[in-house]
């Protein structure tokens, strides 16, 4: 982790216990200057705790927090060079929009002739210039969200902490704000540490995603890596939709696993595995994304491997269509394998139609199947 030279935030063995409950279990993490890092996780995974420790609202039980190389663990929030955008915005109800945005500058005793222009600039940046004199409660949710943002960035923090900032907005507004936030971050060059439980949001906006589970970082990497190369069943399941097949490892190189079939195990090829892959004989899971599955309307002979299709081999398994769900731009086909495991495949509406009860062949390129452990 210390390999990143320009790390602006470093967490070392950060632990937070509330009584006997461990909210955060010794996480270490380095955030690069200018990076958009998303801390993703289900509720109770420790993501908000991480943010609150960095901001200084809670005290760490153990571990160190370095911001710009300075250990801030002992500093109160008002002495840390970070600002926070709160989940429910936490706008001061007794102040106008302008006074809310200027609050941090006033508290830092910035000369008042500077405050006016900087507040105006920040409000323009979030397109709220005309609303400067309004009270927060007179604004819509989206507008309040922008005020919260302006109130933080006007201080030009080194790091901006965002705690589910779009959580209270409806879907359409949320999507628009995602783009806007990302643009703002690029434009200002501020490091963002962004907490969310929405995996789609994480994938859309981030440079890197830290997926948290039970107070630990389950996997840290660029969004694409988390999606394409999940390290565990939990990651595969949490990020996007996936099909999980129980398999037994038979060979590591070339990687072959077996899937249970009615007439004995069927060999299936998977993406090349690393050195830390499970050993032969291990019971693991095969994760294949729905969009990687193809459905052929005819029953194929059982077995794996017609060589030379696409990048690598093509796995083919017989299946029976159980359900067809029309979802606008795609059709979801639920098909059951011989052992009863149901897979979901995405098809285009224009694909050759299949019907419930049809015997079909499910196929996928070997390198789209990823082995994951529990």
């Amino acid at each position, binding site marked *: 982790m210390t390999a990143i030279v320009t790390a602006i935030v470093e967490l070392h063995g950060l632990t937070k216990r509330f009584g006997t409950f461990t909210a955060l279990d010794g996480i270490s993490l380095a955030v690069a200057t200018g990076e958009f890092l998303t801390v993703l996780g289900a509720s109770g995974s420790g993501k908000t705790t991480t943010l609150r420790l960095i901001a200084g*609202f809670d005290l760490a039980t153990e571990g160190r927090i370095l911001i710009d190389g300075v250990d801030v663990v002992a500093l109160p929030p*008002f002495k840390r060079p970070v600002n*926070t955008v709160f989940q429910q915005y*936490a706008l*001061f*109800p007794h102040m106008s929009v302008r006074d809310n945005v200027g609050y941090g500058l006033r508290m*830092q005793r910035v000369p008042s002739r500077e405050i006016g222009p900087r507040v105006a600039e920040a409000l323009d940046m979030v397109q709220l210039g005309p609303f400067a004199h309004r009270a927060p409660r007179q604004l819509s949710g989206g507008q309040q969200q922008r005020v919260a943002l302006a*109130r*933080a960035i006007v201080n030009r923090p080194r790091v901006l902490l965002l705690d589910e900032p779009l959580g209270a907005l409806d879907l359409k507004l949320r999507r628009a704000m995602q783009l806007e936030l990302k643009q703002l971050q690029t434009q200002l060059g501020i490091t963002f540490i962004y907490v969310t439980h929405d995996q789609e949001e994480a994938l859309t906006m981030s440079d890197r995603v830290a997926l948290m589970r039970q107070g630990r970082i389950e996997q840290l990497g660029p969004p694409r890596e988390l999606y394409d190369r999940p390290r565990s069943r939990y990651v595969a399941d949490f990020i996007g939709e996936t099909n999980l097949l129980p398999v037994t490892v038979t060979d590591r190189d070339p990687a072959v696993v077996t899937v249970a079939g009615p007439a004995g195990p069927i060999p299936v090829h998977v993406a090349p595995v690393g050195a830390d892959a499970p050993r032969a004989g291990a019971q693991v899971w095969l994760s294949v994304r729905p969009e990687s599955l193809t459905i052929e309307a005819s029953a194929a002979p059982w077995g794996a491997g017609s060589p030379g299709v696409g990048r690598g081999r093509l796995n083919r398994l017989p299946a029976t269509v159980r359900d067809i769900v029309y979802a606008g731009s795609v059709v979801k086909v639920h098909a059951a394998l011989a052992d009863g495991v149901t897979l979901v495949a995405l098809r285009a509406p224009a694909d050759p139609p299949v019907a419930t009860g049809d015997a079909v062949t499910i196929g996928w390129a070997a390198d789209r199947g990823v082995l994951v452990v529990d």
Partner: protein
Amino acid sequence: MAVLLLLPYALLLIQSFWRLRNGTLTHELTLDNYRRLFGTRLYPATILYSAGVALRVTVISLVLAFPLAYVLAFKVRRHKTLLYMAVIIPLWVSYLVRAYAWKIILGQQGILNGMLMSMGIIRAPLTVLLYSTAAVVLALTHIYTPFTLMPIYAVLDAIPASLKEASQDLYASRWRTFIHVILPLSLPGVVAGCTFAFVLSMGDFLAPQLLGGNDSALMVSNLVWSLFGVAYNWPLGAAVSVVMLGLTLILLWVAGKVEARGSYGGDARASVVDYAAPI
């Protein structure tokens, strides 16, 4: 039942214009009662004196209630509701006990004198403790501090923790957070609490009678009490009551206005009166 409430107050107003002739009530309208009320030194002076006592009680109650409300709202982690209940329970538990307890404490043979003497601090019992304005103020403060605390606690408790955190995140120290965020947000509760303390202590007549002792320490309610109960001059008593009622309503109205300016939409209570709903 609304009639049973409205009619008496209305009748009080009408009665204050009636004439007392040779000790019997006549229904002739007259302004004599008000003339006498404002023409004699006694009544305006007593009203002023009562307001002075009430003001002192209000200020001291506020100074006492605010820190306790603050600690209850922000510092207490466990048994918060239980502790809050403990603070306000005395409100609903025997007014009389709370008032006369001070007689036991402050009396010439009282506990305070006894303790001071046994410790050798004084030789003879102090007689200035009881039967003084200070004793009345002390007892009334004791009685109405929980009342002052109630609305202050209610508003403080409703302030989200995130507002404090946001303020500290924006470089305000705890003291400045208190001045710029907590205090302005608590204003509606402070106004309501102070209104209670002022109105109720100004209208109190038992504590002054018990602890004030001499005539100079009598409050305006004691005048009403003696006009109705001893002198049987009901029209004049009604006039004094109407003045008290008027002052109270004006105060409630002003408090309501101040409070409306200071509340920020989060609180559904429409006016200071709504805080009077027990807990």
